[in-house]
């Protein structure tokens, strides 16, 4: 039995070798893209979640998911856009689940009519506007939010954003305009309040 177990057809060994070589090549290719696009995944997640630790988790999850499905991506030039979408989706899911958890905790710990306690950030005027902005950003429609985040990131032109999101450049411009306008409407009163202090 031991002798028989040692006998292997040569074709299987060759296939195994080719498979491992291809896997190593895919890993090397992914490593290059990881160094280039990893920070982007983090920033997209950070823009949605407004929390560094959560954003790091989501970015890692997005990159791992991209690695597992790397073989499905035929055009490797689309990796950037593909990764942004994965990270954005995962961040939204995380945000929704954390909101549900927060609502559940609030329901049990605080009466409904009491506003949540002010955070440390809210105490500082300089950070107060940023906190309001982050909150207003979270209330934007998803398609406006993603475009606005990408536009605010460095080194992203309108055409690149259009390629990432998969819409025309005119649509990107329009979304940026409406997103900023909606943010202004939400933040106008806060800006005046902060200014009068």
């Amino acid at each position, binding site marked *: *039995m*031991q*002798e*028989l*177990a040692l*006998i292997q*057809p040569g*074709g*299987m060994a060759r296939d195994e070798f080719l*498979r491992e070589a*291809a*896997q190593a090549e*895919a*890993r090397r290719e*992914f*490593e290059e893209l*990881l*160094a280039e696009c*990893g*920070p982007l995944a*983090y*920033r997209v997640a*950070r*823009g949605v979640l*407004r929390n*560094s630790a959560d*954003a*790091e988790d989501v*970015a*890692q999850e997005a*990159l*791992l998911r991209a*690695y*597992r*499905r*790397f*073989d499905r991506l035929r055009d490797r030039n689309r990796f950037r856009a593909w990764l942004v979408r994965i990270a954005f989706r995962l961040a939204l899911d995380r945000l929704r689940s954390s909101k549900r958890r927060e609502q559940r905790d609030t329901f049990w710990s605080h009466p409904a009519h009491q506003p949540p306690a002010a955070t440390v950030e809210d105490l500082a005027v300089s950070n107060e*506007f*940023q906190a309001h*902005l*982050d909150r207003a*950003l979270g209330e934007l429609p998803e398609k406006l939010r993603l475009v*606005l*985040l*990408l536009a*605010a*990131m*460095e080194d992203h032109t309108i055409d690149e954003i259009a390629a990432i999101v998969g819409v025309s450049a005119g649509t990107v411009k329009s979304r940026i*305009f409406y997103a*900023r*306008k909606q*943010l*202004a409407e939400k*933040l*106008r009163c806060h*800006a*005046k309040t902060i200014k009068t202090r």
Partner: protein
Amino acid sequence: MPCENYKDALTEAAASGADPANALRSNAKMAALRAHFESCASCRTAFAEEQALFISIDAGLHATANAEVPACLLPRVRAALDEVEAPRLPWMSPLIFASASVALAFLVFLIARPHRSVSDDQAKQTPPISMPLKPPTGSHGEISPSSVQSPSTTANHFRAPRKSTLVHSAASSNPEVLVPPDEREAFARFVAELNARSDFAAAFVAQAPEKKDALVVVDPLQISDIELKPLESKETESSDRAGEKH
């Protein structure tokens, strides 16, 4: 408080980043706004506030979108990549793999079916031993395939159409012996001894006697005819009784 007629226009101008003072004269809306600013101080103030608001929004967005990436992120991801399953190759996608498996199974079935019938015929016609034994002629010359088997490392195994060695060894008509490595030498000596002493080999591979569990044929009992003899005389019996009385 801006004038109601120009409220939307100045917000749009601030949102688009345009400055009415520097706007092209061909833009009618901007030209009208610029003309209004010259006469309305409150609208100028409102426009300046709107511009400041959008500058604050852009600065806040820039800070949010370009957050410092933790240095541990990429090493952490690389470490996780080592633990995760490697990406499958395009040709190993489930659908292709399933179809290939079905096709391969069908091919193996097609190849195995005629091969099995031929090998069975061979097993019936030829003696199933490949050792150079010289079985004695006579009624005890047939060698039982279960009694002696030859070593398995013959060339036929590698030329066999089926690739699975395990299945092949089980299904092959050629006798095989699975010998542990430590007993290989002893087995080789045993085979050599068998080759040298044909009488011993013949005795060894001789057909076993009839099995014990075969049906036992019992001959019918031989019972001789019963001979009926008359009883002894009554006189003797009466004299015996007289003797007892006395």
